[in-house]
């Protein structure tokens, strides 16, 4: 832990939402362009969240607010660990806890749309968790440490060595970013069968907090993606990570939603085919 990483972690807490919001804005703009629309201003996500703070908050049960706080808290912790250059596995655990609390938020309302959303979110978590765990494991086998700082200072060839893991990670990134074909639990498009899924009964400031949490999450995921390329130096790594990140938008716009069974099977197959194989052959590369 150096001053540099401390500064990075502090920057994450403060600037995380800003970067995340911008990413979301660019995402929406890109999507619009792909649909030959002009699209909203880049800052639109910020307007949305600030508006939500101006709105009244309604609740089904007061407990849901508590769970939203916990969701945000653990999300921030996860990011802080990552940007402190800390242990990736612990960061992942915190991310999982955070996800669980979001599920509990939806479950606590016990309304059918939220419930479908939360049940599907759980299925998705089960789908991506193995692959997500394999990412730090792969890094450990290559860099000899779970610590993000050590991984970033690793060998530039690590991305080649971990190509399978990277492919697997990109696959589940689609799930984590709630993009089609895996937007089973909460779609960006509210006017459909599951309404807003997970967030259906979250309103006002609670919804704003969830949104901010997602921004943090996107920055964390971007950080993970960045780690693959980090040894190449920031000038290479950041653009590559960003390009791959936004490639998800293309996937989003060119795919229809899958069923949960297919999603789980597909993710586990990918985790098995790319992740496990990669880990197994690592000693020989």
């Amino acid at each position, binding site marked *: 832990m150096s001053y540099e990483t401390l500064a990075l972690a502090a920057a994450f807490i403060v600037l995380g939402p800003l970067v995340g919001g911008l990413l979301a804005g660019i995402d*929406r703009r890109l999507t*619009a362009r792909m*649909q*030959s*629309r*002009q*699209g*909203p*201003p880049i800052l*639109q996500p910020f*307007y*949305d969240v*600030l*508006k939500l703070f*101006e*709105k*009244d*908050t*309604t609740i089904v049960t007061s407990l849901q607010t508590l769970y939203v706080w916990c969701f945000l808290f653990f999300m921030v912790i996860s990011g802080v660990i990552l940007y402190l250059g800390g242990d990736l596995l612990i960061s992942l655990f915190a991310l999982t806890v955070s996800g669980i609390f979001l599920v509990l938020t939806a479950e606590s309302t016990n309304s059918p749309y939220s419930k479908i959303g939360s049940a599907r979110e759980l299925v998705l978590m089960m789908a991506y968790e193995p692959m997500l765990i394999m990412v730090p494991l792969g890094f450990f086998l290559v860099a000899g440490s779970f610590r993000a700082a050590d991984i970033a200072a690793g060998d530039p060839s690590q991305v080649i060595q971990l190509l399978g893991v990277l492919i697997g990670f990109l696959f589940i990134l689609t799930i984590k970013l709630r993009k089609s074909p895996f937007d089973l639990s909460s779609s960006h498009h*509210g*006017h*459909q069968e599951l*309404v*807003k899924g997970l*967030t*259906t*009964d*979250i*309103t*006002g400031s609670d*919804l704003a907090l969830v949104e901010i949490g997602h921004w943090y999450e996107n920055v964390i995921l971007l950080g993970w993606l960045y780690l693959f390329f980090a040894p190449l130096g920031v000038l290479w790594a950041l653009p590559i990570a960003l390009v791959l990140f936004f490639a998800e938008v293309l996937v989003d716009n060119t795919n229809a939603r899958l069923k949960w069974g297919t999603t789980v099977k597909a993710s586990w197959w990918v985790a098995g085919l790319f992740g496990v194989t990669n880990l197994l052959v690592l000693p020989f590369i």
Partner: protein
Amino acid sequence: MSFLKKSPWILHYAATSCNGCDIEVLACLTPLYDVERFGIINTGNPKHADILMVTGSVNEESRKVLENLYAQMPDPKAVIAIGACALSGGIFRDAYNVYAGIDQVIPVDVYVPGCAARPESIIDGVVQALGILEERGKQRKRQRKVALS
């Protein structure tokens, strides 16, 4: 400055419309009109919506739903009635089973006439509603302050 104006999320409810107006409402979202330019999003969820757009005339069945949706929208909120049916019952006005206009059921802020209402005028209606929304937002803020102190 109020951000309500910059990000009005919309709930669209067809009370018993002939779907003519609905098609026009949805046309606003197409690349041709692209209301997302203004941050307008069509949510399917009253709990996230700021503006309720109602098309068609209300009857006894849809009245309960309409009231319910309106009640579930968190303040500040605004209502736009779209199309002749929603305004006054339209061509169904004299039918025994419809209300003559949705304003007999919930308070309406903006009336967008037409059969069907044109996308341009719908967008125009939304813009007018924004002003009302902003005003309500300020009011609400004051109320909250009073409630706190």
